[in-house]
């Protein structure tokens, strides 16, 4: 296929090519239909073409739910644009529904006038029954009149395309997702080359599968080109992003890469101990391939062991890290307390998901902030830092280690399912620009009588980090309360008060060593919107739109959750009203009200889904008055 002409839309086969600014597409089908795969392919193709891209993969917790069932529907939404965007979009321009269940669970999100592409052959009696439809929705004229509907006999066309390759019917149908992708590629004028390369590499050992998928992709494109059903297709020119070399990255990839790069550049070993849990497991998967960077991975027997191993690795003098999600973080609580008490550096990654309990394993939520703040016995404050998007994870995980090693304490890194699985174009940093972690181990005794004093603190209240194996620094520490300076066990009342205060002061003092909070918008005014974590994109977009509409509104997106930036209190008091939208029941709001006595109001959603920009604009407008 020829590459698209960027400025002059071309016409082919009598079909118009129209330019668009931003498009939102959602692929949905059975969890076995390969929707995540084609969504990822379209993301890559769009990113490589030069669009700004954001994605929202949304899949069920069941690996293979019963075929055709409503709860087995897997979806992948992507938004690509000719300008910079922060979210995967609200309403869908084009919906590809591979079966009735997918249609039923997704049709509400399709724009009026949007394009609906369905595999009409799946809308048979059995498919409709499984989706609990009394009548075929494709025959519902009132419903269908709202959209541009393309009923495509996808199964048959695809089987025809791969005929002669000796594939079983099941094998042939496995390629249907690429037929659908091909059709959407034609509709949005995408270059199929990156996808063709992917198919060739992925199935390199199975030439017939390569051929079948290539044919399916091509057949889908040709179908769009030839059939009269489609009279127009669209082109989204590249975005004007900051100059540089780009790649696509998800949050979990960025965490793993950030850790590997840090290991290499600091000359330290990263010891990752983890236990498989959705949506954090990809960090373990990715890191286990980075052994040559100085990364060791340990798949522990459980979450507790993973955390305990972190304490051990930190004591042994290396960079210890674990990753989990809410249920796992609950189990880790006691060992995190040990890390806190022994004042050893390590990072605990919490990729938040819908809770409580097992909750919604594959859905996103921001409901572990208070768990991170308070989820340990005793007075045990820990620094908390939250990534705002996939690419941001790369530098934020390294910042977490800077704090951990500089202040000798465990640090909690908050991500979420949306950040972890969502992808965005990421400008590849230059190696020489990357921060170097500067780790110091004490090498000689620090006491006046030649003894080692493990709790003798520096000006930041951090204690020294002695590496076992170092002569003369043999020492014993543990979870019991200890005497300052010597680290010996000490239960005396005054000492406990002193140590509790000191540990708290050490963490609070970190506020002097992190950047001040920035605000997007006027420095004072009517409304300040405060957000944190993965809602950055939706909130920033909504605030900017409200600003463009003349509202007096500013946005502060908080990265350092504990301690909070030292100027945040002043900022909060510079606006008449404070709005805190969160995907929880008001956890940051509680902290802000508690710490600053500010009458912050919340907008809270617990649906396992990210915010839509439009809902936030409405909330901001209403709040603004």
């Amino acid at each position, binding site marked *: 296929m020829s590459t698209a002409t960027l400025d002059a839309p071309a016409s082919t086969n009598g079909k118009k090519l129209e330019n668009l600014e931003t498009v939102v597409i959602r692929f949905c089908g059975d969890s076995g239909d390969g929707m995540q795969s084609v969504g990822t392919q379209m993301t*890559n193709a769009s*990113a*490589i*073409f*030069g669009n700004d891209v954001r994605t929202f993969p949304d899949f069920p917790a069941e690996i293979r739910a019963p075929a055709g069932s409503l709860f087995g529907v897997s979806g992948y939404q992507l938004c690509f644009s000719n300008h910079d965007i922060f979210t995967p979009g609200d309403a869908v321009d084009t919906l590809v529904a591979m079966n009735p269940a997918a249609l039923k669970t997704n049709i509400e999100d399709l724009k009026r006038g949007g394009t609906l592409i369905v595999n009409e052959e799946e809308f048979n009696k059995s498919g409709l029954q499984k989706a609990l439809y009394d009548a075929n929705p494709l025959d519902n004229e009132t419903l269908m009149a709202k959209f541009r509907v393309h009923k495509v006999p996808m199964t048959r066309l695809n089987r025809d395309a791969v005929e002669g390759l000796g594939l079983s019917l099941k094998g042939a149908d496995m390629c249907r997702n690429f037929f659908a992708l091909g059709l959407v590629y034609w509709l949005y004028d995408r270059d199929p080359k990156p996808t063709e390369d992917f198919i060739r590499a992925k199935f390199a050992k199975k030439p017939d599968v390569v051929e079948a998928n290539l044919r399916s992709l091509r057949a889908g494109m040709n179908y769009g080109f030839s059939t009269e059903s489609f009279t127009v297709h669209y082109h989204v020119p590249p*975005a*004007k992003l900051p*100059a*540089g*070399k*780009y*790649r696509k990255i998800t949050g979990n990839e960025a965490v793993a*890469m950030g850790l590997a790069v840090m*290991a*290499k*550049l600091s000359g330290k*070993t990263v*010891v990752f*101990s983890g236990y498989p849990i959705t949506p954090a497991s990809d960090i373990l998967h990715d890191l286990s391939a*980075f*052994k*040559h*960077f100085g990364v*060791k991975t*340990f798949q*522990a*027997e459980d979450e*507790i*062991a993973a955390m*305990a*191993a*972190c*304490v*051990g*690795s*930190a*004591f*042994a*003098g*290396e960079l*210890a890290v674990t990753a989990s999600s809410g249920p796992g973080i609950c189990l880790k609580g*006691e060992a995190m307390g040990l890390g806190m008490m*022994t004042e050893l550096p390590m990072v605990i990654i919490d990729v938040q998901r819908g809770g409580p309990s097992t909750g919604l394993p594959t859905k996103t939520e921001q409901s572990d902030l208070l768990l991170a703040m308070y989820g340990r016995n005793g007075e045990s404050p820990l620094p908390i830092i939250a990534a705002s998007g996939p690419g941001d994870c790369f530098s934020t995980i390294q910042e977490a280690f800077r704090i951990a090693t500089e202040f000798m304490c465990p640090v909690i890194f908050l991500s979420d399912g949306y950040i972890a699985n969502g992808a965005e174009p990421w*400008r*590849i*940093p230059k*190696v020489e620009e*990357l921060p170097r972690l500067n780790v110091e181990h004490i090498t000689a005794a620090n006491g006046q009588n030649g003894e080692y004093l493990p709790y003798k603190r520096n000006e930041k209240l951090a204690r020294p980090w002695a590496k*076992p*194996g*170092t002569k*003369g*620094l*043999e*020492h*014993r*520490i*543990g*979870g*019991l309360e200890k005497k300052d300076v010597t680290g010996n066990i000490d239960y005396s009342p005054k000492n406990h008060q002193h140590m509790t205060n000191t540990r708290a002061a050490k963490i609070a003092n970190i506020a002097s060593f992190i950047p001040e909070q920035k605000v997007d918008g006027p420095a004072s005014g009517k409304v300040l919107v405060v957000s944190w974590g993965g809602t950055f994109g939706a909130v920033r977009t909504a605030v900017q739109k409200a600003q463009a509409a003349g509202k007096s509104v500013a946005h502060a997106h908080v990265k350092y959750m504990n301690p909070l930036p030292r100027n945040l209190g002043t900022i909060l008091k510079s606006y008449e009203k404070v709005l805190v939208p969160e995907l929880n029941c008001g956890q940051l709001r509680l902290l802000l009200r508690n710490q600053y006595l500010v009458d912050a109001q919340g907008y809270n959603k617990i649906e396992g889904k990210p915010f839509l920009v439009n809902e936030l604009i409405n909330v901001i407008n209403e709040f603004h008055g």
Partner: protein
Amino acid sequence: MSVDLPTVPVQPLQSKDFASDQEVRWCPRCGDYSILAQMKKVLPTLGIPKEKFCFVSGIGCSSRFPYYVNTYGLHGIHGRAPAIATGVKLANPELQVWVITGDGDALSIGGNHFLHAIRRNIDMKIILFNNQIYGLTKGQYSPTSPLGQKSKSTPYGSVDHPLTPLSVAIGAEATFVARSVDVDIKHLTMVLERAAHHKGTAFVEVYQDCNVFNNGAFSYATEKETRSDSIVYLEQGKPLIFGKNREKGVRVAEGNRVEIVQLGGDIKEDDLLFHDEKAPEPSLAFLLSRMRYPEFPEPMGVFRDVDRTTYDESVTRQVDAARAKLGEGDVEKLLNSGDTWFVN
């Protein structure tokens, strides 16, 4: 398997070099004192500098142990010592890592970590002080307390069937399994030495008297009058003989079981069970671990000592292999991996 431990050309260490400046806080006459004393005897003989040892423990009376040896030490949380020690060993495979634990710590709250450390064969020594009681929490029954044991939480007697620590360890694919008793100083020293020289997880159960909450639980194995009839010493390649006058032996009977026989008459030493700690197959060791007092004399010594690649060794090998195959990690290459594009 025995390994060549590094030799250090410095002044040989002595027992007192391993004494820490901390006051030992166990109850007077606690069996732990003897274990500590024997450990301090063994450590200087290993040719390993003091700073290369790391003692890790969980929670319980035994777990105070690291405070009393002047090496690196980490007093952890209840049951997690094997997991903490795994983290230590992964980060620095050059350390000799000892885990000190008890029957509640290792087999109840920490059962999972105990199993997995052993099956991975991480190069660490796990010394379990078995006193069949919870001492630090003042006298509740433990997973090794016998049925019917009266304790603070079982005034009518325990209805929990106990675990046999050695059987659990062997079932978990242990490569080194041994048992000794706190007051048998020479034997305990020998067993600790053997454990120290094993490469892989070395599991040692030490019968330890809690004279406050479970006094005399192992008197059958320690008192002069009963000892020779209620324990049998294991020696590699030798028959299992016991009794005051070495008049009794252990023989394998039909049906995969053992029986006690009187020597003399028709039964010769050659008819007895000969100990083989190197047997590749763990059945014999397991069979021995099932011999419990009072039905049988309880074996003391090394039940099993076989070679298997250690976990930490495998991890290091994989890292080396990855480096050999892929070269040193290249940051530039990693950042630029996958599909990339330019924006001008």
